């Protein structure tokens, strides 16, 4: 939305915004905690509030057409793109294209945890969507792997919703999350943070039953019973369409008229910085169109 608005303000008057979901706002809609907008809006907002301010600006800019529930399935090197939307399939060739496709979460399979493959192992962001958007609580006794911000925030969220968070287990010697989140998400609720520890084994036949936690230095182990494991071990920019278009390095697409912004460019900590850089992408696209 920030890129579209910046291009619009730079004089581009024919803009289509393609969104996969039923609503604008992307991942912000499930990030119901505060801490957004301190730089850009100089006030502390929750994710949905931050998104709402942009949704209103997009709605006010009449030349920006929004296509919801629209999923791009094909992109070529000369920017011919095909997307599915309710009732049809559309192919068009914009003169400039800005990709803001976000990230995917790293999964349990990517971090080599031994053990069985029972139900009850979720990426933390998926669990966030279940709790905050769908209203399901995926478990009652939780162990969180990884101390990134999403994992810390979900530890607090599950606690507030009545689940018991047994521990957050971090393989590094310090937390990867913001200090504020360690204090307000873990210390506030006396949730133990095991630094320099790893989950060595997940046990359970049909459902998660317990995990074995190992100290990286002493190799001492202990067990924690739980019915759910949340995995919060990082994000990977989502750039399959750019790969499909034939670029060897999605971070530097080198395809004329193609611009990338947001978490699909690199993983950001602060949404305010996403907005700032996305505005640059929108301006760059406008500049490209003037010169093309």
């Amino acid at each position, binding site marked *: 939305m920030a890129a579209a608005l910046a291009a619009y303000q730079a004089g581009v008057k024919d803009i289509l915004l393609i969104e996969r979901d039923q609503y604008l706002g992307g991942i912000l*809609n499930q990030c*119901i*905690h*505060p801490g957004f907008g301190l730089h850009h809006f100089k006030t*502390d*907002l*929750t994710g*949905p*509030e931050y*998104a*709402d301010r942009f949704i209103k600006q997009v709605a006010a800019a009449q030349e920006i057409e929004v296509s919801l529930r629209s999923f791009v399935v094909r992109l070529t090197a000369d920017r011919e793109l095909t997307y599915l939307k309710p009732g049809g399939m559309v192919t068009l060739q914009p003169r400039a294209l800005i990709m803001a496709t976000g990230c995917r979460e790293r999964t349990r399979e990517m971090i080599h945890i031994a053990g069985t493959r029972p139900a009850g192992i979720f990426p933390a962001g998926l669990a966030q969507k279940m*709790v*905050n*958007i*769908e*209203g399901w609580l995926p478990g009652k006794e939780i162990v969180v792997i990884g101390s990134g911000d999403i994992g810390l925030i979900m530890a607090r969220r599950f606690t*507030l*919703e*009545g689940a018991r968070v047994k521990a957050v287990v971090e393989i590094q010697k310090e937390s990867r999350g*913001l*200090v*504020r989140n*360690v*204090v*307000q998400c873990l*210390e*506030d609720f006396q949730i133990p943070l095991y630094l320099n520890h790893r989950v060595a084994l997940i046990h359970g036949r049909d459902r998660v039953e317990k995990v074995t936690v190992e100290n990286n230095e002493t190799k001492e182990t202990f067990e924690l019973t739980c019915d759910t494991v949340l995995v919060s071990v990082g994000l990977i920019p989502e750039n399959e369409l750019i790969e499909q278009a034939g670029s060897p390095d999605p971070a530097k697409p080198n395809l004329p008229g193609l611009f990338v912004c947001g978490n699909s460019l690199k993983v950001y900590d602060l949404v305010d910085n996403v907005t700032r850089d996305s505005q640059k992408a929108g301006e760059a696209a406008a500049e490209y169109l003037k010169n093309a």
Partner: protein
Amino acid sequence: MLRKMTCIECPKGCQLEINEEGGRVISLTGNQCEKGLAYGRQEIESPMRILTTTVLTEGLDLKLVPVRTDKPIPKARLLEAMALISGARLTHPVAVGEVVIKDLLCLGVDLIATRSVQ
């Protein structure tokens, strides 16, 4: 009693050591600026938090509407507030910023919607 805590006013995360007696700060060390002193005092005397959560809806577009308290509430009452909120149902459309529960737990704080729902 000696208490240790991490200051969260900025990313430096100073380790504060606070000598407190019955909820009153007697001495505070480890801070690198005035903000650390104020933070430590607030945390000992009356820690406050903004609560963000969701309220179930009935007959609206979204299953849940995200909400927050419009001012911080005492940390000790977070779970009490959650128990009250989990029993609440929103049955009419709201816009961002509109009150969903007025005067939560008689604290003089309103619970407001953070997303519009039709």
